[in-house]
């Protein structure tokens, strides 16, 4: 198979190198098309995400080496230190692994599937692909789907925020009727509340020692800023509390919950403490209607999911090997048939 892949990723290159080679999404098609102008390159697809930049090139057998040299020159690769390359069936195998999330920073993540699909679509629309790469990419999408449906590679959550989100849905089912309070306007709270907003939470309150920062985050998420000494006044309204301040002493204590229990009619309260040291007094978790999760508990769940996914890698590779072998055999027979 006259297929060639050249690329770098989070494992081979630091962020400053990846930044240098990153291609904006709207230029992927153009860049792929430009590569097909190089001598020896018949078809090309450029993939560029936060963690990788890869070029897949199809060439005539006799021109593969010329294509390789021209490609490197065109990309401005002075040394190969950060780049990896693979040819023919190894390139196909690599693409299948990428599409299946086996080569991702977060093992088994599903976002890469869509990113590769978009990159391929852009190349296709720019007429940078032909019979060879069209087949290769279509097949790799099929393999990616098979890996996802037949293994547990994407099961479980691999970030603290998504574990918290899953738990919130396990308690409240639909977050559309939930009110969230964010204590502390740090990065962790921001990420978690953003994913909750995507699930359609009803209202968000933001409180922070600096009211200004609270107002900034509140404006960002379409919520309401609350002065730090008044957050307990809105506690009766909220269903989910996300706390991530830099305080050295607990911010939320048992008496805060006790004072609003009756007003809340004892309805469930989900409390996520992602601060270190902890913001929420562990005694709060003793209340029957309170589900308290701290960073350790959430991270433990993340580790369980990661370990589960890692245990699936061999199974996924087996599927990829079988599928690639089938594709190669099919291509060989088609070639033979053509020659006859």
């Amino acid at each position, binding site marked *: 198979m006259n297929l060639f892949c050249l690329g770098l990723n989070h494992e081979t290159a630091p962020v400053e190198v990846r930044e240098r080679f990153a291609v904006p999404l709207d230029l992927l098609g153009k860049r792929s098309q430009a590569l097909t102008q190089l001598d020896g390159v018949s078809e090309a697809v450029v993939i560029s995400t936060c963690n990788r930049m890869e070029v897949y090139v199809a060439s005539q057998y006799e021109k593969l080496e010329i294509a390789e040299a021209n490609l490197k020159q065109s990309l401005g690769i002075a040394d190969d230190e950060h780049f990896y390359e693979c040819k023919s069936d190894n390139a196909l195998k690599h693409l299948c692994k990428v599409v299946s999330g086996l080569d991702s920073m977060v093992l088994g993540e599903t976002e890469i599937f869509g990113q590769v699909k978009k990159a391929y679509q852009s190349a296709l629309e720019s007429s940078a692909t032909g019979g060879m790469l069209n087949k290769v990419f279509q097949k790799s999408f099929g393999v990616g789907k098979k890996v996802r449906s037949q293994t547990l590679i994407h099961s479980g959550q691999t970030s603290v925020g998504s574990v918290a989100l899953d738990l919130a849905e396990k308690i409240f*089912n639909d977050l559309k009727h939930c009110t969230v309070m964010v204590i502390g306007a740090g990065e962790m709270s921001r990420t978690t509340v953003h994913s909750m907003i995507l699930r359609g939470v009803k209202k968000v309150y933001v409180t922070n020692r600096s009211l200004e920062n609270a107002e900034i985050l509140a404006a960002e998420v379409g919520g309401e800023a609350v002065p730090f000494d008044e957050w307990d006044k809105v506690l009766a309204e909220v269903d989910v509390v996300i706390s991530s301040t830099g305080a050295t002493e607990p911010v939320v204590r048992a008496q805060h919950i006790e004072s609003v229990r*009756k007003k809340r009619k*004892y309805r469930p309260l989900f409390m996520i403490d992602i601060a270190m040291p902890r913001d929420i007094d562990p005694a709060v*978790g003793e*209340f*029957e209607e309170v589900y308290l999760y701290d960073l350790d508990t959430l991270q433990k769940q993340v580790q369980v999911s990661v370990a589960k996914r890692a245990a699936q890698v061999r199974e996924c590779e087996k599927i990829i090997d079988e599928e690639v072998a089938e594709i190669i055999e099919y291509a060989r027979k088609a070639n033979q048939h053509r020659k006859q």
Partner: protein
Amino acid sequence: MNYILIAAAVLSGAAGLLGIRSITTDSGRSSWTMFLMALSFVVQLYILGIRGEQRGSCPLSDPGEILMFLGWSLTLFYLVVGSTYRVSLLGVFTAPIVTALLLIASMPGMLDIHPVHKNVSDYWWEMHTALSVLSYGALAIGSIAAIMFIVLDGFLKKHDMGSGLFKTMPPIFTLVSSMVRLTVTGVVFLTIGLVSGLMMSTHGGIHLWIAAVVWLGYLLLLGIWYVRGLTPKRMAMLIVSLFIASLAVFGAL
């Protein structure tokens, strides 16, 4: 008759087994559970229809018929709750109970071999028995939802999220809303059943008084839930306790 009854029990038993398998193998909810329960429901309805024809009244005159009717009402509410709240996992808990009820009903001596045909019916008695058994069906499923809540609450409190059971269980809010709505439905049926019992031509006896106490207990519980509020765990435990206590009515029959 017994063979048909056993067939209904086999169907609900298979539904339960499939449900348990879907949990233990982590394969998600089984739609076959719902289908088999629906099939079992139809078979149960057929048997009750035959018994009703033979009796010339609502078939609630011997222990076998009462158990069958209870199993049927459990299946009915399971099907209603299953589609409305998508709590098909309830089947895992409901199906074995229905199977047990039907198997006990099929045991020798439980069903009159030659049921007496009533020429004159007391409609208040028929309404009282039918609605009371229906109310027990709703209250029983409400209790099952409450048990499921207690189990899930335990998992969440202990931060135990790894089991297949945890993953398959419906969310806390769905379970709370199911157990409360089913209890309300049960109490509505029980109220009409109780009023019908007071209108009967024959004296209801002590079981009617026990039923009245049970009814008051449920009314008080729902009042506290809606007016003052109660932690869902306490509500679930009280629903289960009240249901167990309410079984005393059958002891007084």
